[in-house]
Structures are given as structure tokens and as C-alpha cells.
């Protein structure tokens, strides 16, 4: 059980970190994340 909690927590953290990083990197260049598959620009 504790193991499961470790894994879930780890993935949640990693996912959040990378999502925020993507967001930050793209917005620094003035671009939206544009995840909804709409053609960019």
C-alpha cells in the first residue's frame, strides 16, 4: 500500500513539474500550450 502511494505521488509530482515547465517555456516565448489540437497561429 505504501509502495503504491509512493508511485502515485511520484508520478503526480513529475507530471505537474513537467506540465508547468512546458507551460513556462512556451509562454516565455509568447506561445500558448495549445493542447486542444487546434492548428496553431
Amino acid at each position, binding site marked *: 500500500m*505504501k*509502495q503504491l502511494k*509512493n*508511485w502515485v*505521488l*511520484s*508520478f503526480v*509530482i*513529475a*507530471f505537474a*513539474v*513537467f506540465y508547468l*515547465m*512546458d507551460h513556462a*517555456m*512556451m509562454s*516565455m*516565448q509568447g*506561445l500558448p500550450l*495549445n493542447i486542444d*489540437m487546434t*492548428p*496553431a*497561429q
Partner: protein
Amino acid sequence: MSPHKKLMTDNSGAVSGTFSDFTTRSHSAKPATASAVLLHRSMQVLFVVIIMLSALMLIPDLAWSSDAVSEVAAEIADEVGQNKPTLKPAPTMGPGDYRQIGSMSSRSFVWVIAQLHLFLAAFVLAVPLFVTVIEWIGVKTGDQRYDDMAHEFMKVSMTAYSLTALFGGTLAFSLFLLYPTFMGYMMEVFGNQVMVYALLFFLESGVLYLYYYSWYALRYGNKKYVHLTLGVLLNGVGTTLLFVANAWATFMMAPSGVDDAGVVTGGIWDIIRGPLWNPLNLHRFVANIAFGGAIVGAYAGYKMLSARTMAQRAHYDWMGYTSNFIAVLAFLPLPFAGYWLMAEIYAYSQQMGITAMGGILAWLFIVQAVLIGTILLAANYYLWNGMSRCDGSQRYTWLIKYIAGTLVVSFLIWVTPHTLILSAKEIATLGGSHHPLLGPLGIMPAKNIAVNLMLMGTFLSFQLYRRSDKVITVPWAGFGNALMVAIYVVAIANIIFLGVYYGYFTNTVYKVGSSVAQVMSTLIVIVSGVVIDSMMFKGAKTLPVKWGQISNRGVYALFALPIAFTWLMALMGYVRSSVRTHWHVYTVMKDNSVDNFIPNIGHAGNMMTIATISFLAIVLFIFWVASLGDTKQPKPER
């Protein structure tokens, strides 16, 4: 002094015995009086101050771009008389302004000589950099082996030093002989600055000899700090030398301090501080370390393969491992330094940037991919083989085949020329010299994925290697491992997602934008890996490492590395120089010689090979001379 002579002999086992005697003696002879402690402290402070000063030099934008500094420099330049406008435009040259040696191409001749000088100079400047660090580690850990190794590295670089000067002199003579008008203009522009270079060279020689020959005279206690200070001073002078010479190259690429006609309008400081100077300074500085590490790695590998005793083999195995570590550690940030340089080139002139990355030189980046791939594969192969030194590595060996698979697939994707091939129509419309595509290399999504995965795979190998001799004991080990795995998994998914989604479903702007996030993903893995590991290693149990217990085949990776580094350096230097196309000094002084065209890749490759093989011959000579110093002819019987 007899200890001095005895210590010069290169036999680590026997020597360290002598050393420890020496240590105890010197320590007991000097009781820790207040003044001694004070001296010790002040030595340390001096050392730290000098380190910080040189660190400041390495953050060029902090130290150099501040206006206050440049004003002061301009004032100094005024006083020296540099700032007097000479009001002479750059001469326009005709074919008669060039000379030739027989029927030999002047460009080819200067090409090889300059390349050899740069190889040697890079090596000579790099070795003291990590030698001083290793020496410092030796002081901190109290482990004599570090000190011995640092000294042995220095020994190898000493012979290379005089050869560097010889090739530098030959290069200068051949430039003045073959390109007199061009060199005349360069002297006009740089003026007394070249004498500063000469002066620094004297200083470099003095400090270098002092550093090397005082090694055993200043080995313990406070004297060691004097010696370390000498080392830092040596690196300060050496790095300044490098930066001074870089200014000539960057002035030719992106002239500053002159007007459109090449008339000198600014002070020497304006001329030196062109837009590409600092990026090139950083890039060359870091690349030199990687290069130097790879060369001494080959030395260690060669000594290990020809070792006669197990102790020798173990010593050189460890030395080879350290060299490889230095080379790879310095190599990993290089793409980022290269990115900065390239970005500044684009900012200075889009045209120049595109000529390099998407124009006629773009194919060279395919060769670059092969070389970097070779370096990464060799470094990984060496790490995997090195894991056999420790039994604890068996826990991780199952992962190697996946890393290897990823590396190979990524490598193949990377080197596959894709959209770059010139179509016939394009050749016809462009006259064969430029290509309109930006090239797959800067932004091509598949290749970005591949490169980042390769870097990440290399880091994973490195991480596994570091973990192989440890048993982690911290209570949160389970969470730490899970977090590390999660970071890898999410990072890989993120890199692939960014590459595929933005790369293939949106436009160029997004491709460039997402590549930054891809690189950041790799950086996050590296940084978090180092942080998490160092926290998890607290109180970890260490398993014994059996140095020398690596297959000979693994050691061959140590020979592939320097070859790839050397060739890569020749290649990228050629690209850097060629982006000027038909200009001696871009936009200011045209190259009207018979060699003002960009040769085809095959020809350039052959020139690089000539330079590399010549360098190889020189390096072998250096290694041989270095070992000759240890050979003593037995006294004849009669």
C-alpha cells in the same frame, strides 16, 4: 634535494610510502602556533579570492558587459594610445595580394598548421584546469592518489606546451608570408593588443614551469596552498590568452569597432568585444576541457593496456575513468554553449546563421551528428564495461540493453539525412550554393527527440554507474527511487510528445518553441538526478571497487573518444570559419584569393583527417617523451 628527485619517479605505490613519511615529519616539525594558523587561513583566503576572481572572468556577461568596466577599459586604452583613430579603410585585395608556397594551396597549408596549433593549445590550456581541480580534491580528501594523478597529467601536457608555441610561431609566419595584406590590416586593427598576447605568453610559460617544477617542493601544509594558488594563476593567464586570441577570430566573423569600410572607429575594447566574443569564449573554454580530458584518457588507456603489474593497471584504470568522467562532464553542457553561440550568430546576421545551419554548410551537421553519436556511444560503452569493476552493478545490468537500444535507434534517426536533400529544382534555382530549408537539425522534431533521448540515456548510464557501488540506506529510498523513475518516464513522454505534437502538427514557431522545452526536460532529469542521488547516498554503504577489472575491449572506448573529439573540433572550427564565406573580415574585407569558395565536404573532411592524423602522431610523440623521462639506463657494469 634528494626527496625531490626520488619523488619524480613515477611509481605510485612506492612513492606514496615516501610521501607519508614526509608528511608526518613536516607536520611534527611545525607545531600549530597561532601565526601558523593565521598563515594557513590567509593562504586559504587568498586561494578562494583568486578562485572567485577567475570565476568572475568565466561569467563574461557579468564582468565584461557592464558599461563601467568598458569605460575604464576604454580609458586605459586611450592612455596606451590605442584609441587614436587611424582612419584607414580595409584594403581591397586583388589576386596579386596573395602569395603561395610553390603550387600548394595557401588555404590548405594555413588550415592544417592552424588546426594543429589549436589542438595543442586547447590541450595545453585544458589540462591545468582540471589538474588544479584534481589537486584541490586531493587536498580536501587527503587522498595522495589524486595528487599523483594530477602531477602525471601535468607531465603529459608539458611537452605539448613547447610544441604549441612552435606551431603558433609557424602559423604566424605563414599567415604573414601568405596573406600579408590581410595580416597588415589585422595588425592595423588590433595594434598593441597583439603584444599583450605575447606578454601573456611569457607569463604563461613562467607560471607553467613554476607550477610544474614546484609540485614536490610545495606539496604539504601551507605550501600546498601556494602551489594551488600558482595553479589558479596559471589558469587565469591561460584563459585570458585564449580569450585574447578568440577576439581575432570573432572580429573576422562579426567585426565591431570599425565602420562599414573597415576604418577603426572604436577603442581596442570595442574591437575585442564583438557580439560573438563571449559565446565563443565560453564554448571554447568548455570544449577544451572535454578535449583535454579525452586526450589524457587515451594516455591512461594506453598505459593501462601496456601495464606489467596489476597495481599499474589499477592505477591507470582509475586514471582513465577519471579522464573519461572529465571529458563527458564537460561535454554534456557543450550543446547549450553551442546553442548560445549559434543564437548570437543568428542575432548578428540571419544570413550567416542560415548559411551555417540551413545553407551549404548544413551537411556538415550530419557529420557532426555521427561524431557526437560516436562520443556518446563510446562514453556509454565505457561506463557499462566499467560496471564490471563492482559486483553491486549486477542489480542494474538488465537496464543496459534498453539504454543501448534507445541510443542506437536515436543515433540512427539523428544521422539520417531527411528533408535536407537538395531537390534538383532547388539546385537549379539557387545556383547550387544555398539551400532554402532551415535544415532538419535546428528544428527538425524527430532529431530533437533523438538527441535529447541520447543525452538522457547517457546520464542514466552515468547514474547507474554511480549507484553500482552503493547500497542505499536512507529510509525514504522507496520514494526516492519511485520519484526518479517517474521523472525519467514523464520526461521521456514529454520529449516525445513535444516533438511529435508541435513538430508535426503546428508551424515552425512552435517547433522552435517546443525544442526549448525538450532541452529543459533533459536538464530537469540531469539536475534532479544529481540532487536526488546525492541526498540518497547519505550514509550509503559502499561496496568495494576493483580497479583494473575492466575488459580491454572496454578500454578501447578511451581511444575512440579523443579521435572523435579531435575530428569534431576540426569540423566545428571549419564551420565557424566558413560561415564568413567569401570574406576575410565579414562585410569589411573581401577574400579575393583563389580559395575564396567553400570547398565540398569531402575535401574539408580530408583536410580534417590530415590534421587529426598529424595530431595523433604528435600526441604519440608526446606520450613517448613523457614516459622517456622515467626511463633510466642502468649503469654499465664496467
